[in-house]
Structure formats: C-alpha cells, structure tokens
C-alpha cells in the first residue's frame, strides 16, 4: 500500500534519515557529515515558549466548541470534533502546573499524534513557527524540576522548553472506571 505519510513518529524519523542520505548522494557527496537537525513547532503559553517535534504534530486548529467530560481530571478540558473525529483536549497550562486556562477564540489547539492511533489536542495560547535546531544545540532539561519538559534549546534570546510527550499525554491512561463502590473511586485532580 502506498502511503505518503509516515505511520508512526519513528517511521517519520527513518524516512527523514533516508531522505537526507539520498539528498547527500545527489549533491555529490560532500565529505562533511550533514548535521542532524530537529524541526520543532514552537508555541506560546503564558509568554513562555514551548515546543514539540514537528513529526508529532498532525494539525493546528482554531479554538472551537469544547464539550466537557463529566468527572474528568481538571487538566482534561473536554473533547472537540475534528471533521467527525472526537478528540480529547488537554489544558497544557494545568498539565505544566501553571494554573488554569480560560479558553477563548484566540487560543489554538495543537493536535498531536503518537504511535498506535494515539491522538490528543493541546490547548495553547498561540503558535509561532517551525524552528530548525541542530541536534547538538538541544540540551537535556536536568536540574529543572519540570515534570513534562524533557529538553531545552534556545531560539534567539529566549529558551524553548521541548515537551516530553510521553509524560504529557501518552502514558496517562487514567481510568475513570473504578466507581464501583461509589465513594472510593477518585478522579485525579
């Protein structure tokens, strides 16, 4: 089957490496190794800059009608309908411990996709641009007590915090199902 888009993030990286290799050959094979670069989508939240790898971004949409989910954790704003597909939207502010969002029309939703059909939306204030950074300029965010930020890099004179997607959305399989005894089941705040 001929798909023109990578099915997983990993496959995307593979293809990219292949393409770069091929390009190198076409350009007459320069002796220098081409630097690995990463492409990041940079967006703003509370006047700070955050980013995710471009390969995880499926689309960016304007703010739209949000349907709240009953008994959900506070960082789960609700669901939106994307051309018929129902996708959960997370409050990135809350997720990062920066307080609560009051979504309005200026917000944007960054729709992310991971592997195995995982989709989720992140509510952000604004979206800036795609920023290309050489791998070596990306530093691990150790020493910074940030639960969801894995790495950091610079862009001009500001820092950009690169989100660790697994921590932000992937592994959070919160189960709201256990309400059997009624009293003890507890949704995480």
């Amino acid at each position, binding site marked *: 089957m001929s798909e023109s888009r990578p099915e997983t993030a990993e496959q995307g990286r593979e293809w990219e490496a292949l393409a770069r290799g091929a390009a190198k050959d076409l350009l007459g094979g320069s002796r220098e190794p081409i630097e690995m670069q990463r492409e990041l989508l940079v967006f703003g939240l509370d006047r700070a800059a955050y980013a995710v790898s471009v390969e995880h971004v499926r689309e960016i949409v304007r703010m739209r009608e949000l349907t709240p*989910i009953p008994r959900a954790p506070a960082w789960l704003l609700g669901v939106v309908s994307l051309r018929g597909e129902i996708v959960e939207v*997370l409050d990135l502010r809350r997720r990062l411990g920066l307080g609560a969002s009051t979504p309005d029309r200026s917000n944007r939703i960054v729709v992310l996709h991971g592997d195995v059909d995982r989709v989720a939306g992140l509510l952000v204030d604004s979206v800036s641009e795609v920023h290309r950074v050489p791998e070596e300029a990306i530093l691990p965010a150790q020493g910074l007590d940030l639960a969801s930020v894995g790495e950091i890099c610079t862009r001009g004179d500001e820092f950009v915090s690169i989100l660790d997607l697994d921590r932000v959305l992937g592994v959070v399989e919160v189960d709201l199902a256990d309400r059997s005894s009624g009293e003890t089941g507890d949704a995480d705040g």
Partner: protein
Amino acid sequence: MADRRTDRHGAGSPVASSHERTGGQDTREFVSEAEDTLEQMRESLSRLHDQRAEAGEVDPDLVNRLFRAAHSLKGLAGMFEFDAVGALAHRLEDILDGLRLGRIAIDSPVVPLLDEGVALFAAALSRIEQSGSGTTDLETSVREIVARLERGLAASPVASGEGLDGLGLADSELRALTEYEEHRLRENLRQGRHLSRVETTFEISAFEDGLAEISAAIREVGEVVSTLPSPGPAPESQICFALLVGTDVSAEHLAERLDFPDTRVVSIQEGRPPAAPAPKSAAGGHEPAGEVETRFGDRSAEHESAGPVPEIESLRSISETVRVDIRKLDELMNLVGELVIQRNAIEDVALRLNQNPGTARIGAELGKVHKAIDRKLKSLQSGVLDVRMVPMRQVFEKLSRVARRLHRDLGKDPEVNFKGADTELDKLIVEQLVDPLVHVVRNAFDHALEPSEERVAAGKSPRGTIGVSAFQRGNHVVIEVEDDGRGMDVESIRAEAVSSGLIGEQEQLTKKEILNLVFQAGFSTAREVSSTSGRGVGMDVVRNNLAEMGGMVEVTSEAGSGTTVTITLPITLAIIQALIVGVGDERFAIPLNAVLETLAVEPSQILHSEGREILNLRGEPLLLRRLGEEFEIPCGGPEARQFAVVLGLGDQRLGLLVDRLQGQQDTVIKPIKGPVQQIRGIAGATQLGDRGAILVIDVSSVVTDATRRREAA
C-alpha cells in the same frame, strides 16, 4: 498407489523461511485463509469423533473434506513459505489420505493425533500473526508431532479388504477403479449393501446435466462408487455411462426410482444385513416437543437423506459467499454514519429556510429532497448493517467443541443443547462474545454440574443438561445458559462476600442482589474454587468484557435445581437512534433502544426511601437518579420540574432525571480518542449537525451503578 512425495521439507527447517517477507499484508492473507480452513477442519474433526463414537464408522465425505482441507493448508503454507507448518499439514494430509483410502482404520491410534496436529497448527498460526515471521518456540513441538505422525503412519495396520474377485465385475472394470474407488467398493460390500451397475445413455451435448441428475437420484438411496464412460452401442451423438453403485435398496427398487430414459440397472451382488449392528447411542435426554433444535454432533440433523451430501452442492455454497475484511465493513459503516450526520444538517438548514418567509418555498423544496435522501439512507444503513450480521451458529459450533473438550478433560458428559442458532448479531460483537460465553459454559461444567452419583441420589437424570439459547428481544439479543446442576447457595455466597469485605455483616440484601455479587471483582479473587457454590472464578471478567460491548449479565438460581446466566447485548453498536437530553448547560445523547418511556416529574411526586429517590410509576416503584448528580454537573435545583427518562436493561429499571428533553436523532457513536480512556458512564460521542460533540451515555453502566449504589443509612 499413493505417490510418497519425495520433496520432504523435513521438520528441521526453521518455521519461517529465511527469505524477506514482503510484509504484514502477506502474512495476514495467509493467516486469514489458513484460519478459515483450520476452522472447517476443527468442525469436521469434531463430527468425525461423534460419528466414530456413535456408529463406529465415518461418513466418507467427511474424511474427504478433511483430506482436502489438509491439502489446502499444505499448499497455502508452501506458497507463503512457512515450511515447518507446511510439513505438519503434509503429514496430516497423509494420515487423512490413508484414512479415506481405507489404509488406516478409523480406530487406529494415529487418528487422535489429528486433533493435536490441528491444535498445534492453530497455535503456530497465532504466533505467526503476532510476530509476522518465525515461530521458533514452537519449532520443537512441531518437529515432535511430525515425527510422531510419521511413526504412526509407518506402523498403521492396513485395514483388510474383502476380495473383489468373484463379484462378476469385468477385469477391465476393476482395473479402471482408482484406489479410492476400490476402497469405497470394499466398504460398500463390507456394509452389506446391494451392488449394482447402472447403465445409461445421454446426448453428448447434455451428458453433464444428465449425469448430475442421475447421480443425485442414486445418492438418495446409496452411493456412487464410480462413474465410467462405457463402450456401448450408441449412435455418434450419444455417450454411454456405467455407474457402479452401492445402495440400501435392491436393484429392482433402484430401477423403479431411476425413472430416466435409456437406463437399466443390473444387479452385481445382492446385499446382506451387516454382520454386527452399528451401535447407535440412544439420543440421551428428552426431545422437547415443538421447538426446533439444532444439536451439533448429531449427524442426522445435517443429512436428511441416507446418503452423503453431494459434493456439487457444497462447492456452490462456497462460491455464493464472499469473505470480506471486517475493516472494510467498518469503513463502510463510518461512511454511512457521516452521511447520517450530513442528512441531519440538511434538515436543519431546511428548517431555518422555512422560518424565513422569503426563503420558505426553497425551504419546502429542500425539505422534500431531505425526505427522499432520508428514505434511501435508511435502506443503505440497514443494508450495511445487515452485511455485518452473522448468525450465532458460529459461536454455538465453538461452544460445542469446547463442550467436547471439557468432556474429555473433566469426564463429565452433560447433554448440551443449542437453540436459536439463526439469531444474528454484529460480527464484532460475536467475536468478542465467544470468550465470555466459553467461560460461562466452562463454569457450568466445572462447578454447577454434580457428578452422576450425586445427581442420581438427588433424583435427577445422571447426565445433566446445559442449554444455550439465543433470541432477539427488541433491540437486544439475549443469550441464556441454563443448567440443571446444583444451583447456587445464597447463604454461602453471602458468607463469602462478608468475609471478603464486599458487604457488611448486617446488610440486608435480596436474593437477587446476593446472587449477583458473584460478578464483583473482590468476590472472585477472594474465593477458591468451592464445591458448595454454583459458580467459580472469573465472573467479574465476564461482566467487564460484556460491559465493554454495552451488554450486561445476570444470574438466577434455585439451590438444588439449577442456574441460569442471562446475557443481554445490543444487536449492533453502529448507528443508533438517540434521545437528546439537557442537564444544566450540557447536552447528552441516550441510545433510544434502552429507553422505555419519558415522563414529566414534579418535585412533589418524588418519594424518598432509604436514602434514595423513588417515583410511583403506575403502582410500581421506579428508582430515580439525577443525571446532574451522577455527572457532577450543576443543574436545576430540587424545586425545578424535571423529566424522567425510564431506562430498561434486562430486568432492571432506572428513571434518569434530566432538565430538558430535546428531541431524537440518528447518530453514530464514535470512540473518544485521547489519553483518558474508560470514562465511566460514557459510551462514546457523536456530532450533532454542525455544532460540537455530544457525549453518549453508557446505559448499562449507569443503570448498574445506580442500582448497586447504597447510600449510608
């Protein structure tokens, strides 16, 4: 002479070829085709064992079918280069070949190896499916069983045959027989049938049809051993045939039945009654009058006539069906769902046009178009839904095999009856239904049924009965598993629930509530398998599996008499009619198939009892639950007038209180994608018109939660 194929692949080669596999697509194709064939083999093997047990002999068509299936598997494995399973299929084919040619007797010890071989093949298949390539951990097992099969083949006694000389058959006739035909001839003689030759003539242009007709007529009373063109006195435009047949009726009788032109029947040997009467076990248990039952393993239910089913028939039925990837059906279903949503949007637009006098006429026209689309869409909808429906028969056949295996493993031999094999369910539901059902049946075998001595002492029939029946009730399918075993002891269940901390010592519960405690998670894990209770471990898993499909399960029982497990499932998950309701600022959709009625409720009508709210509905108490409270949504206070949506699921009733009723819609329930799964009380979401998403309520969990919830007194 069977040609011992010399291209032995050898059991030493790795299960998967070392060639690059062209990818998942190929493997999927192989697995899917192989699974189908394997399924047929399992069914046929099961029938083979039954026939062997009941009659001591086996329908030759059955063996042929098994042989062809094994041959298919071998070819398939070879084509996709799965060498070791190919070798396995090859040995199975050899055994079946020996069986059908009479070289291996039906009671040879090699025959049970067939079951093992098939089971191992199935295991290898699922490994292949998961990993996409090798199944190295099964290599040893495969090698071992291939070796055993080969040893068995070598050691097999050749069934002795009666001499065919002195029969009055011409040498040329005898020589023309294939080994298989020779074997069939001997078999017919051994069974003491009448042997005759049917000589007939046809026009060359029409002989195929004629031959088929006369063969069918013969098959009604016997078997066609061989069909040969014969050099007879016939003009150029015609052709003569001689059919060797073995029949249960005499040659004269046969001649009378074969009312075809240019036909005569010559008797070769008179039949005689068989030496020992074939042992036919009496059909145990009672034959209930009236209901049409299908008993699997009962050969007479399959064949109306005395002879084997003509092969021509079975080929035709295969070509009438098409195998479709279930994902394509899902896509179709989605498309139809999208069309439904757009159709609703058209209706919206038409209404708005109608409201404005300037555009009212156009609005009316659009309204007509909408109605026409609506009609066609409904047909399309039911057509696509229909394609996904499969009969319960498939599930029953699997259960039948499970029962057989349990019989072998546990030594208990209850009569297992099935009713309603034609009841249809969505294919996806059926696939997920098998495991829970097997679990329930297994429990019945294991725990509910007492050993025969105990049964006889209690005045019951020694064998015991398990009845599985499926029927449609409104928009649901109900499946009941009923046994006449020892029943469930309410007291000991209560005691165990108390000791595992599920309920308090002092709590008062009805018998029904106590019985349904067995579905609670804490209950099953705390108990050990006990001989005093009716049901064993794992019922909470069963309930969860069913709840995921929007179904539910209940149990009723009488100590000493038996237990019934009732499973209720929606017929399909796809497009449903929904009632839109409003609570506070939110809207929700409730599947209409669970809604019995809706009523307006004044606050003064609400009664309170034991901390719950109740409504007096035509003399019966109806438990109420405020949706706003359930979902923690701020809504109109207790002084406001509300509406009760009366939900019914199985026997349970709940009145869900909402602020507003906002009409009905066709909707498609879609899954909610995102990191938070398992949202209690929500079955999915749908889109209404061009507005946002609306959450669809999971009726079964809401009803179950409400009826189980106990407020502190």
